[in-house]
């Protein structure tokens, strides 16, 4: 058996080396970024009204989008996991599409659907609903690219809930809604948390679809990623600082939630 040949721990050494290299790969750009910024510079940027506006807009847009993702994404995940309807495989593919589509293409697709000359856009405009170039449009763009992350995570979890748990609850007299709330949801909590974290982080960092569909205007559609890109064109140092702020927010989010996810029941 080859387990006995070779130096003991050689496999571990190789794995450790490669894994360590990967970690350095991730850490280096971030460390380099931090190195370019001074605390005074960071503080000054954070105080700038344009930055605060972008931050507030980013939080507003990403949180509203997260809400929409949950309200529409959970039922979608439920149906995909539990209901065998014709074309389900295609539906699954459609839902995953925004994850592999370049975000700009997503933005173009949204324009084709909701733009002024789009499929629904003309009709929407007649009833007074305009989506491109508005904050609502930014929310739509973010939701489009981020929801699939929540749906796919949830779908897998919902499909693997022990059906006997739900049966037990039913025989005890629980209505469908009560079963959903007291048995199904708690059973998928880790996946729900993971899905929410991914969904929000993706939404916070969304750029391509937003700038293509919603445009770029301070206070209305210029979320943090767009503000960073804007700053890059005139003041790279400011761009770095802004980027760092966004990074810090995302990192805090993900770390806090990943801690939750890792916990096994």
């Amino acid at each position, binding site marked *: 058996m080859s387990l006995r040949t070779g130096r003991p721990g050689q496999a571990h050494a190789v794995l450790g080396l490669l894994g360590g290299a990967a970690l350095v790969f991730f850490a280096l750009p971030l460390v380099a970024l931090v190195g370019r910024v001074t605390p005074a510079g960071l503080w000054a940027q954070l105080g700038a009204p344009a930055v605060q506006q972008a931050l507030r807009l980013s939080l507003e847009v990403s949180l509203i989008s997260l809400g929409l993702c949950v309200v529409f994404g959970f039922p979608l995940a439920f149906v995909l996991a539990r209901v065998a309807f014709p074309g389900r495989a295609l539906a699954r593919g459609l839902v995953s599409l925004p994850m592999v589509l370049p975000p700009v293409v997503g933005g173009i697709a949204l324009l084709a659907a909701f733009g002024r000359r789009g499929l629904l856009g003309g009709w929407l405009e007649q009833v007074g609903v305009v989506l491109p170039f508005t904050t609502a449009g930014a929310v739509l763009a973010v939701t489009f690219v981020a929801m699939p992350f929540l749906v796919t995570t949830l779908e897998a979890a919902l499909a693997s809930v*022990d059906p006997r*748990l739900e*049966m037990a609850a039913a*025989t005890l007299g*629980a209505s469908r809604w009560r079963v959903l709330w*007291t048995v199904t949801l708690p*059973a998928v*909590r880790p996946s729900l948390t993971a899905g929410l974290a991914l969904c929000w982080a993706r939404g916070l960092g969304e750029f391509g679809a937003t700038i293509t569909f919603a445009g770029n205007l301070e206070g209305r559609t210029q979320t943090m990623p767009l503000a960073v890109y804007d700053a890059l064109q005139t003041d790279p140092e400011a761009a770095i600082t802004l980027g760092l702020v966004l990074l810090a927010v995302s990192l805090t989010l993900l770390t806090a939630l990943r801690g939750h996810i890792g916990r096994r*029941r």
Partner: protein
Amino acid sequence: MSLEVDALVRRGAFALELAFSLPDGCTAALVGHNGSGKSTLVDLLAGLVPAERGTVVLDGRLLERAPGLRLAPQARGLGVVFQGLALFPSLTALENVAYGLRARGVGRAQARAEAAAWLARFEIEALAERRASTLSGGQAQRVALARAMIVRPPLLLLDEPLSALDVEARAAARLLLRGWLAEAPGVKLLVTHELEDARAVADRLLVLERGRLIAQGPVEELLAAPPPFLAAMVRRAER
């Protein structure tokens, strides 16, 4: 008579066809090999699988008349202890037991109080705040039983309730189970493949083989003069 069943159930290629009735207060044991249709019968009674033809009547109430009428599981008011127990893992033992009461609209405080009383009755009150996923097999069994019995169901179904226990614990558990079931109102149906469980706990015996009832009657009578199939089972059990 409290439970009357006369039905045909199909599950893929398998067909379960039987007719029997059980009086109020009786504890019956349903024995049979694996694959004889025991779980199908439990699912039929619980409302989890529909009958192709026939009726299920409990306490004079029509639970099912195929193919038109079929009450949903939550409307039947039964108590079920599933094989594998199916305790809600994220809830505590107390919350598990209180679940059926809460589902029926009982207030939180009252439900918790009643559940605590039942836990005490099963001598596991110390486990009240423990998460169900951390309980041992025997502890979980008692919680599952309490959860099903607390709602005082007219029909209590127990699907292999002692299967999680090892041989030694099983003997003691049989006696305890007999005591608890004797106190419970309504019809009690215990499903098992172990004849000893039937002998120790039940007063009526139903024998299922390949989807048909091949024998039914009082436990002592049947075991004293068993028909051929049952005799083989008895011999095997005594070995």
